[in-house]
């Protein structure tokens, strides 16, 4: 027997795009149903941002403790090295996820959103069939919000399974691999590779391009390169993975260097992080008659697809594939459906990498601005000159804040930083861009001493050539 449900808003996908859209729609009094086969929270909460940050945090703590073994450090001494119990670490991480997960469920309930657990398959633009534990449910909605997210890209010669893992499995390993090879030195690969290095694994990167973190300029990635070098992490650039070979019970990763010469590495796990692609298959998108934009669903500034009252948000509609972008779009679409006028027009969307050290970027780099024909002025302030940084042992990682402004108007066009905890500066950076701040606005804002944020004010002063502390 098939049950039938009609509603005002149907949200498909319970990630940070979908659940935010559903909560906001519920808050606005719209009859809303959200369909998700898994727990709510999506990649971000269950197998991405949150669990990886938990692992990264634990890895940092574990590594820091090593420094205290023996002679001690900062007057703190450990007689014995700390012992890593990976299973317990993963269990703790799962607790964090579960807690947040329950929080999202509660928020949906509070907003009076009906939660349907099951896999939705669309028949047409407004109707889908959901296979639930209680049988088939057909949902017909006035508005449909597609928020199906993305998945890790698989390499045909290194299919996931066995010792070849994606970021999802990397967050659930029972033990630290002795040697972890990471294919792709983008932000996901670097975050996890660095965490496993801190947890004691030997880590090797194989990257097809000529640099790590290709979305950032060399100045920004240099401190990360230095950390990798210092910690014995090999990085093979312009190298192409070819596949795995089993030899004498050992797993060999075969890759070709930039000259085409083949190399073999004995590895325990191969983490493939070569990008993500939108989830456009297996749920009847082809029956919905919406236009595509390459691999993505095509949307306008209001996240409208080519089909009336069918909306799409998040990773499904294109770069940047970031949770906070998806959430902003989800909130906006719910408000538009409720009759408000809204448009997705951010000046910039900040991005962070929880690498060692951390990276944050918002807006244009100096090179990007120059390519657009803008004459720029750039101000830089090194964290080595920051009291706060030194007081938390982070003065030697080569970090800095760099601000890029239009030379004529002094309107800030981009802000980038690398260093310990700089991800937390992303809010002020994004605010500066959204408010149309000029260098003098930042320099004229009294920043708290001693905090990392002082470096932003100093970098703005440096653009005028009058930083105080350098």
């Amino acid at each position: 027997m098939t049950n039938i449900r009609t509603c005002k808003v149907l949200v498909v996908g319970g990630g940070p795009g979908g659940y935010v859209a559903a909560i906001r729609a519920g808050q606005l009094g719209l009859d809303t149903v959200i369909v998700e086969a898994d727990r709510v929270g999506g990649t971000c909460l269950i197998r991405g941002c949150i669990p990886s940050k938990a692992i990264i945090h634990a890895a940092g703590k574990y590594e820091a403790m090593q420094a205290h073994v023996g002679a001690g450090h900062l007057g703190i001494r450990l007689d014995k090295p700390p012992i890593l119990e990976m299973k317990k670490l993963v269990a703790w991480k799962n607790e964090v996820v579960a807690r947040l997960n329950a929080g999202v469920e509660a928020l949906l309930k509070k907003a009076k959103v009906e939660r349907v657990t099951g896999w939705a398959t669309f028949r047409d633009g407004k109707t889908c069939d959901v296979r639930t534990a209680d049988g088939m449910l057909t949902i017909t909605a006035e508005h449909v919000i597609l928020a199906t997210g993305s998945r890790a890209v698989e390499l045909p010669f290194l299919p996931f399974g066995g010792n070849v893992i994606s970021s999802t499995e990397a967050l659930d390993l029972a033990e630290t691999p002795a040697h972890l090879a990471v294919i792709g030195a983008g932000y996901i690969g670097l975050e996890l590779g660095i965490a496993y290095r801190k947890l004691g694994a030997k880590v090797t990167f194989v990257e097809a391009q000529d640099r790590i973190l290709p979305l950032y300029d060399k100045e920004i990635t240099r401190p990360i390169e230095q950390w990798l070098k210092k910690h014995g992490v090999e990085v093979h650039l312009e190298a192409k993975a070819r596949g795995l070979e089993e030899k004498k019970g050992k797993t060999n990763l075969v890759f070709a260097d930039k000259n085409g010469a083949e190399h073999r590495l004995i590895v325990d796990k191969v983490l493939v992080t070569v990008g993500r692609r939108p989830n456009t298959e297996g749920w009847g998108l082809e029956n919905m008659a919406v236009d595509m934009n390459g691999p993505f669903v095509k949307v306008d500034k209001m996240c409208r697809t080519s089909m009336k009252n069918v909306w799409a948000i998040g990773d499904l509609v294109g770069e940047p594939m970031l949770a906070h972008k998806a959430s902003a779009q989800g909130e906006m679409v719910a408000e538009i459906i409720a009759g408000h006028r809204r448009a997705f027009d951010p000046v910039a969307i900040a991005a962070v990498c929880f690498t060692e050290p951390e990276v944050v970027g918002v807006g244009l780099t100096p090179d990007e601005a120059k390519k657009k024909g803008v004459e720029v002025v750039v101000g830089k302030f090194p964290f080595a000159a920051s009291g706060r940084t030194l007081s938390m042992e982070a003065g030697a990682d080569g970090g800095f804040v760099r601000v890029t402004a239009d030379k004529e108007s002094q309107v800030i066009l981009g802000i980038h930083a690398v260093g310990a905890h700089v991800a937390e500066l992303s809010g002020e950076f994004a605010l500066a861009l959204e408010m149309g701040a000029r260098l003098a606005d930042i320099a004229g804002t009294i920043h708290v001493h001693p905090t990392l944020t002082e470096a932003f004010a100093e970098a703005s002063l440096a653009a005028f050539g009058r930083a105080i502390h350098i």
Partner: protein
Amino acid sequence: MATYVFKLPDIGEGVVEAEIAAWHVAPGDTVAEDQHLVDVMTEKATVEITSPVAGVVQSITGKAGDRIPVGSDFIVFETDVAAAVEKKPAMAEAKPAPTLVEPAPAPAPALAARPAPNAKPVATHRGQPLASPAVRLRALEKDIDLSNVPGSGPAGRITHADLDAFIAGGGRLAVSGGRRKRTTVTEVPIIGLRRKIAERMQLAKRNIPHITYVEEVDITALEELRQHLNAQYADRPKLTLLPFLMLALVKALRRVPQANAHYDEAGGKLLQYDAVHIGIATQTDAGLKVPVVKHVEALDIWQAAAELARLADAARDNRAKAEDLSGSTITISSLGKLGGIVSTPIVNLPEVAIIGVNNAVDRPVVRNGQIVIRRMMNLSSSFDHRIIDGADAANLVQEIKGLLEQPAAIFIE
């Protein structure tokens, strides 16, 4: 390799510098001998400069609006075309339009030399108006395009107060009703002919104490004669009013010869001419030009009409030579059907008189106590009052009026 440095040639008597009007080539272009390279303006005219050699342009000096001294290095050519082409082999291969498609070997100078008057980068994010998210949201909700709202904040940032003021000023209604306040200012560089016109008008208006005298002329008889002649001599140049006025002016100037003159203020003398070279103020697409019909005193009505037509066409097509545009001793200004009732023409320095022609229309006038319809036309004429007294001005215009009203008198010695 062989380079040829082309210096800005002497393009007219006494010209020491020329203003670049427009480039027609850029570095990297291959040019043939005699190919049109650049237009330059002098005090007198726009001159087309053609290439003295065949070759590849290596560099050019100056951009539109710049003044270049005569004799300075102007264009450098690579005349060994094979060598030049060799440097960029891709250009020689299979690309039919090399100047458009091919990145020249040195794109930077090419870009620098091309005029880009409005290429200033917009000092805003992504070219969008500078405004905070809250201001942007309010504008969106009120259906206001922020690019229409003037920003009072630093770097033109739009504040809530700016938005309030825009709404209070009817901006919202204006926008949704299809009428909107327009706030864009377009910067039009005043260069070339326009700059020349501006300078000369300023000079004339500042230095000359003008007196303007307006009189009406009954041209009913003249119209009849004109139409008769045009019908009678269909194979000859078509006669407008102007040739008659020119011939009448020649005759009238016998009575007031000091009006056909140049006032040399610095030299403290008036150069009074026997020859009557009449400048005809002509509107062209590029602006006001004054082609000159020389020695009108020696022309009959047909010759005057033919010469007038030739010069006006040349001026409009930008083909007028420097000598066609200089040497006038007195000027006639006519806007044809746009002539209006009265105008106040500005004397064409260093001349001392200008005759303005207003529109010819049928008007009721009183003749012998009766109201009759006559073809009437006003003449609005200005004079340099330092040289021409009011009575002289009146005499000249009254003489012209008499001749035009009894047109046979124009042709009787």
